[in-house]
C-alpha cells in the first residue's frame, strides 16, 4: 500500500485495530531488561525508523537505570535488610519510581508521536516485561486521495444516517 500520511481527520473518522507488532527482549546482556532495537518491517510505512529506535533506546536506558547496581541501590537494600524488609511496606522502591517515569514517557510518546501515526505503544509492564506491544490502527476508508471529499460527505452522510434512524 502507498504510504499514507494520516491526517488527524482521517484518524478521527475511522480507527480500528489492524494488527499488533511485538518488540521482543534482547537477552544478549544477561537477564537485565532490554528490548531489541531492530526495526519491525510492519512499521516500515508508518513511522520513521529513527523515531522508533530512539523510543526503544530511551526505554532501554530507563530500565538500565532502574536495575542499576550501585551506591544508592546498596543503601536501599541494606536499609531494607536492617528493618527485616518492613520498610517496603511504606517506602516506594527505586525501581517503582523509575517505572512511573517510564509510564509517563510512554504516554507522552503516544500522544506526540505514535497516535498521530495511527500507532499505540503499550507499557511493557502490562505484558510482563516481555515485549513492547505496538498496536497498528488501520483506516477504514479505502482511498487516501479523496480524503477531503470523503470527509465532508461521510460526516454528512453519517449525520444524515444517524438522523434518519
Amino acid at each position, binding site marked *: 500500500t502507498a504510504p499514507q500520511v494520516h*491526517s*488527524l*481527520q482521517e*484518524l*478521527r*473518522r*475511522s*480507527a*480500528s*485495530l*489492524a494488527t*499488533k507488532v*511485538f518488540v521482543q527482549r534482547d*537477552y*544478549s*546482556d*544477561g*537477564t537485565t531488561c532490554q528490548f531489541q532495537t531492530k526495526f519491525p518491517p510492519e512499521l516500515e510505512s508508518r513511522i520513521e525508523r529513527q523515531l522508533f529506535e530512539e523510543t526503544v533506546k530511551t526505554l532501554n536506558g530507563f530500565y538500565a537505570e*532502574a*536495575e542499576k*547496581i550501585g551506591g544508592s*541501590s*546498596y543503601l536501599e*537494600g*541494606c536499609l531494607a*535488610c536492617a528493618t*527485616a*524488609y*518492613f520498610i*517496603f511496606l511504606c517506602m516506594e*522502591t527505586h*525501581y*517503582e519510581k523509575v*517505572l512511573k517515569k517510564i509510564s509517563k514517557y510512554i504516554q507522552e510518546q*503516544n500522544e506526540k508521536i505514535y*497516535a*498521530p501515526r495511527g500507532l*499505540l505503544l*503499550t507499557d511493557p*509492564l502490562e*505484558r*510482563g*516485561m*516481555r*515485549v513492547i*506491544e505496538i*498496536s497498528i*490502527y*488501520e483506516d*477504514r476508508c479505502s482511498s487516501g486521495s479523496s480524503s477531503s471529499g470523503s470527509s465532508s460527505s*461521510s*460526516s454528512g*452522510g*453519517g*449525520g444524515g*444516517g*444517524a*438522523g*434518519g*434512524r
Partner: protein
Amino acid sequence: MTPGGGSGPMKDCEYSQISTHSSSSPMESPHKKKKSVPKRKWEVFPGRNKFFCNGRIMMARQTGVFYLTLVLILVTSGLFFAFDCPYLSEKITPAIPAIGGILFFFVMGTLLRTSFSDPGVLPRATPDEAADLERQIDIANGSSSGGYRPPPRTKEVIINGQTVKLKYCFTCKIFRPPRASHCSLCDNCVERFDHHCPWVGNCVGKRNYRFFYMFILSLSFLTVFIFAFVITHVILRSQQTGFLNALKDSPARYPFTETNSVVCFFSVWSIVGLSGFHTYLISSNQTTNEDIKGSWSNKRGKENYNPYSYGNIFTNCCAALCGPLSPSLIDRRGFIQPDTPQLAGPSNGITMYGATQSQSNMCDQDQCIQSTKFVLQAAATPLLQSEPSITSEELPLPGKTSISGPCATLTLGQPTPPSSMPNLTSDTGLTDMIPLKEEHEGHQFLTPEEAPSPPGMLPSGSPIAHSHTMHVLSLASQDSLHEDSVRGLVKLSSV
C-alpha cells in the same frame, strides 16, 4: 430521533443490560449489577496459587508444611523465652532475651515476606502475543514441516559469550527468559527460579530470594542461639544441683527443655547446612536449579562458565542481596474491567464535551486532536484491561448478531463493520471504541445469567430516556461513558 438513531448498536447493548434484569424493576438492577462486582485479577489467575487478603498475599497451593514451620519456630522460641530466659537473664545478662527477641522478629519478618510475596511469576502471554510467536516459530521452522512431530521450540541467545538455550513454555505460551523455569507445583513460570520450597509454602525466585536467604540465615543464628543457651541453662543448673537433679527438675519446672534441645539439634545441622549451601550459590551467582543440573559446571566442558556471575564474590553477594527489587508483574489487585474512573473520567467526558460545545468555532483539526486523544485514552486502557475479559470469553454467542459484530471487530481486528450499523462507521469510528468495549464487558457480566437472545430483547427496548436512566443506575463508569459517547455521537454526527 437522532439520539435514538445514533446509538443503534448501543441500544442493543442497553437492551442486553436490561434484559438480564427484565423481571426486576430498574431500581433492583443496580443491586444485581453491584453483586457482580468487577473482579480483581487474582481471582482469575491461571496458576495454582492461593491468594489471601484480597490479593495482597500469594502462596502455593499446599501450605500445610508452612504452618508446620510456623508452629515449630513459634513453639521453640516461645518455650525458650518462657522458660529459659528468666533464669538466664538473671544469671548471666538480660541481653540474652533481647538479642533472642531481635532474632525472632527478624526470622518471622523474613519468613512471612518469603511466603507471602510474589516470587517473580511471569504472566502468561496474551492471545495476540501467543499467536505472533506461533507465527514466528512456523516461519522459522517452515510451516510445511508441520507433520506429526512438532518442531522443538528453542531459541539460542548469546549472553556474555556463552550460548544459552531459551525454551518455549507450552503452558504459558512464552519463550522463557534466561534462568526462568516453570514450577510444576504452582503451574507458573518464575523468573530466576531457584526452587519450590514447601517449608515456606511458595516458590523461591527472583523477587523473594533475598528474603529466603535472610530467613534461613537468621533462622540458623536463632536455632544456634537457642540451642546454645538451652544447653547453658542445663549446665548452669546442673552445676548448682547436679546433673541428674537438673534433668529431674526440668520436666516439672522447665518443661520440654530436652525436647527443645533435640529439635534445635536437628534443626541446627539442616538449617546451617542449607544456609551454607545458599551462601555458596549466592557467591557464585547460581540458582539451585542450575547447580543441580550442573549447567555451569566445568564437567560439561572447559568452555563452560557462568555468564551471569560478576566475577568476584563480593559483587555477586551484593547484587543478590542488595540489588534493586523488581516489581510484581502479575498485578494481583488490579481490576479486570475498567470500572475505575480512568475511562469514564472527567478527562474523557470533557474531551467530548469540549469538542461538542465548541463545535461551531473549533476547526476540524482541533476536534480531531481531541478525538485522537480520546482514542488514545480510550484505546489504551480498555485494550489493556479488557483483553483478559476478551480471552476468557472468546467470541460472544452467535445469537447476539448485532453485538457480536463490534465485539468481533475488537477480538479479530476486522476492519469491516457489520452491516447492521452502517451509520455508525462513518462518523463515529472513535466513539465506536468505547461503547463496543463496554458492550463486551457488559457481556462478561451477563452471559452466565442471561438466557434470551438480543433479537428477543429488542421489542422490550426502551427509549433513550429510559436507557439513560439505566445508565444512571448501573455501574457508574461504563454508563457515564455510555452517556458521554451517546451525547458525543449526537454532536459529532451533526458536525
